[in-house]
């Protein structure tokens, strides 16, 4: 295992310390329980937007704490959802009297911990709403399973809910906008290489030189299907077509599009994928209104990419375009 770390059991805390030093103008960190919070929290009368989840997906979530996006992030251990204690402490830190919104990715662990946190917050008189993100089209959407995983769309929800909260909308309104985001977005990812959880020291799966995994999540878990290594355009075809057909995105749809790197893939390759995705959108008459290309929701050093697309109207675009000032997203 080759990593720039000191001790596998301290990676989350040490990196939080570095984050705090590097972005002291935007955020501060709290330990035991661990959370990252906007420098100016709590803001009276403003809905507090909170997300969280396992670490190892940086910059998500901590890198999106700041003006116009998250009020707080609760980083769990690597790939392990945070505890209710963390979430409750973060809720206290950001609650300005207008309630808090939890943006929760659809994993059993995240849901259970955020649900318990919500119960505890409500017991203490803090109003809570939750938005569930479950955008991964690689996973079957069935009543008899845990449903679809929450992946790249989380960034979109954090940006858009953050903007709405910053504009002073009510908790119910911000939550409603978050649910619209959740309905309109779809994602799918693939991996060229696995990743190594520091405390484990071994890759969670292995792939031969000529193999790849299609339909992976963001926790180093194997995907839905192993396949021989394809060219970038063929991979893009598979991911994009599955996404297009699922929502579906149609001729005339307008979309915000993200080509996301899993952590170990060079930016150059992500642009190669974006290039073909744009060609496919052109061919289908889908208009790309905004885009992100880069590492936004990663799996440690995994090589690979994911595509996220969300159908938008002018209102969602306005929230997207609203100013944001965080370590990893700013305009």
């Amino acid at each position, binding site marked *: 295992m080759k990593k720039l770390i000191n001790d596998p059991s301290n990676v989350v805390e040490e990196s939080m310390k570095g984050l705090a030093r590097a972005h002291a103008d935007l955020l501060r960190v709290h330990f035991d*329980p661990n959370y990252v919070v906007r420098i100016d929290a709590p803001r009276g009368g403003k809905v507090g937007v909170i997300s969280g989840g*396992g670490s190892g997906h940086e910059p998500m979530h901590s890198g999106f704490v700041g003006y116009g996006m998250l009020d707080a992030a609760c980083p*769990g*251990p*690597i*790939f*392990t*959802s*945070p*505890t*209710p*204690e963390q979430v409750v402490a973060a809720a206290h830190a950001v609650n300005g009297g207008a309630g808090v919104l939890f943006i929760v990715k659809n*994993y*059993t*662990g995240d849901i*259970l*911990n955020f*649900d*318990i946190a919500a119960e505890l917050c409500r017991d203490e008189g803090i109003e809570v709403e939750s938005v569930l993100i479950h955008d991964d089209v*690689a*996973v*079957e959407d069935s009543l*008899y*399973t*845990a449903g679809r*995983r929450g992946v790249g769309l989380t960034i979109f929800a954090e940006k858009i809910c953050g903007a709405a909260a910053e504009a002073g909308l009510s908790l119910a309104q911000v939550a409603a906008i978050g649910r619209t985001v959740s309905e309109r977005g779809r994602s799918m990812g693939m991996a060229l290489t696995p990743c190594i*959880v520091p*405390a*484990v020291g*071994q890759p*969670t*799966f292995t792939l031969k030189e000529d193999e790849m995994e299609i339909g992976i*999540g963001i*926790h*180093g*878990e*194997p995907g*839905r299907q192993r396949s021989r290594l394809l060219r970038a355009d063929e991979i893009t075809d598979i991911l994009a077509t599955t996404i297009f057909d699922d929502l579906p995105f149609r001729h005339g749809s307008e979309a915000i599009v993200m080509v996301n790197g899993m952590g170990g893939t060079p930016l150059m390759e992500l642009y190669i994928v974006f290039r073909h995705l744009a060609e496919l959108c052109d061919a289908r008459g889908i208009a790309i209104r905004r885009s992100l290309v880069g590492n936004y929701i990663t799996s440690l050093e995994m090589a690979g990419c994911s595509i996220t697309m969300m159908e938008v109207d002018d209102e969602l675009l306005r929230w997207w375009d609203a100013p944001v000032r965080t370590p990893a997203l700013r305009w």
Partner: protein
Amino acid sequence: MISNVRVESAVLIDWMLRFADKIVENKEMLTALDAAIGDADHGINMARGMEEVRRRLATYADDDLGALFKTIGMTLLSKVGGASGPLYGTLFLRMGVASVGKSELTDGQFAAALAAGVDGVRQRGSARLGDKTMVDALLPAVVTLQQALDDHASLCDAMEAARRAAEEGMKATIPMQASKGRASYLGPRSIGHQDPGATSAYLLILSAAEAICHATRSDAIAEPHPG
């Protein structure tokens, strides 16, 4: 006939220390099981929680079993995270609710408390038998425990039967396709692997059987020569 064990604080703490030891010993194994169909952290998660439980119980004094179980439950809830933290946390919190104000449990009370805990797990996670989760080990264990007590077995014997049921339940997860938790994302690829949570749950029941039978033997030895 073996004397009835007194399920009091010391026995339950012994249960937890044995469970902590087994979790730590089997940390890599549990993580490896989770690597196959999950995200390779179950052993790490459980060890983080149970080491903290062990620390807190080292100086634990309160006789009230409700408080004891609540401490265990809250510790797991605030240290484990993931799916297993809230689930095991809930199990002990519910056992605590069932034990409030008591400093010892009868056989039947113990079985009922454990059943309440497992019921809490089912409610929290809404998993059913066959979903390939810890419920597949826990539920057969509490059902068998109650049955054996109804059949007038000693608590030690009943727990041994429950242990066997948990073990079978754990092994039965191998051919299952997961429909709850992270393994469900794998669809048919989840088949052929033993569920990590069912495995730690088996260790929980195994530890309980050991602690109870150990206490029973100690009591049996102690009784003929009362202080």
